[in-house]
């Protein structure tokens, strides 16, 4: 007979943790990703070279970091670049991105929608429409099913 029949500590064990089939996200080490380079992007915006700024800001997306600050900074930066564009230039800019770029852009657009400020939603809607025509419905589905968000 086992000694501790009185003990009900077993009730505190979370059995689901030990389930072999339990799905765990791949924990990539994302410490090295710092997000797009602010200084570079700012200087490109000031020079008026918006296409380059867009490319620069979509580099090094902070996908894997757990640090929320990095993600917030990256998002603010992207939003700045997107609002700096004139409406007529948006289409060209989207065309210049490759497929992964368009997907990343979509992720940022949806992230931007979460914190609407006065005019951001209007620009974001325009960008969304153009990105949709470039990336197709697949890009939206990829945003919905992505496990690692920007």
């Amino acid at each position, binding site marked *: 007979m086992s000694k501790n029949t009185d003990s009900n500590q077993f009730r505190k064990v979370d059995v689901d943790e030990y389930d072999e089939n339990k799905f765990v996200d791949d924990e990539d080490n994302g410490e090295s990703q710092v997000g797009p380079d602010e200084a570079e992007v700012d200087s490109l915006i000031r020079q008026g070279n918006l296409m380059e700024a867009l490319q620069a800001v979509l580099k090094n997306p902070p996908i894997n970091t757990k640090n929320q600050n990095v993600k917030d900074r990256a998002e603010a930066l992207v939003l700045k670049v997107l609002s700096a564009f004139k409406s007529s230039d948006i289409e060209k800019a989207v065309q210049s991105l490759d497929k992964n770029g368009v997907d990343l852009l979509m992720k940022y657009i949806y992230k931007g929608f979460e914190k*609407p400020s006065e005019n951001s939603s209007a620009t974001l809607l325009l960008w969304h429409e153009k990105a949709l025509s470039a990336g197709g419905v697949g890009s939206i589905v*990829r945003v919905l099913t992505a496990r690692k968000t920007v």
Partner: protein
Amino acid sequence: VKRGRGIWRSVWEIFPLSSSNFAFSSLSPSDSDSAPVPQRRACHAAGRSLSGELLLSGGGAPQQARGGGPVSPCVSVCVRDSVCFRVFDHVNAIPFRSSKELLLQPVIISRNDKEKVLIEGSINSVRVSIAVKQADEIEKILCHKFMRFMMMRAENFFILRRKPVEGYDISFLITNFHTEQMYKHKLVDFVIHFMEEIDKEISEMKLSVNARARIVAEEFLKNF
């Protein structure tokens, strides 16, 4: 609330019993690239090969909504994408949130900071929550009462939830059962239609309230 009839009528449109075809082919967007990798991973993790057939019922022309740009196609595409699901489990994944691999990313689409739509998808259901524009007190009251009216009759509405999600005014919960009984594209169209009509309905109600109040006040003050 007689004004709400417009919305009710469109509910009946989506009812014809139809067994939607769940023949699954791999999710391929309109251009030619292969099935998205993250999604495949999530599928394998869920233990089944989840591929959905995207119902693209023609890309509608963007309808100019009020304010900044076309929200409707934005929302409709999102809802349409998340409405592709099948029977996985009889438990709705969203309210219970039991397994991480069954949930999609929640997505918000906002026109400004007062009006937004939250779309949370999962493997067998999708929850669409709408925050309606309420500019002043009377619109707030009207909106609240209108939503309450509908939510109290949520059983007959099928896809409506009895309580809205925190921060929003009304929520729809569309499950695989619903998509089995009702046309998917009609469901999506209904939600879009709802969003567009709700603003109009509330403005109409406000106008009639003001008109009635004016008449009443006139009549009353005639005595003096």
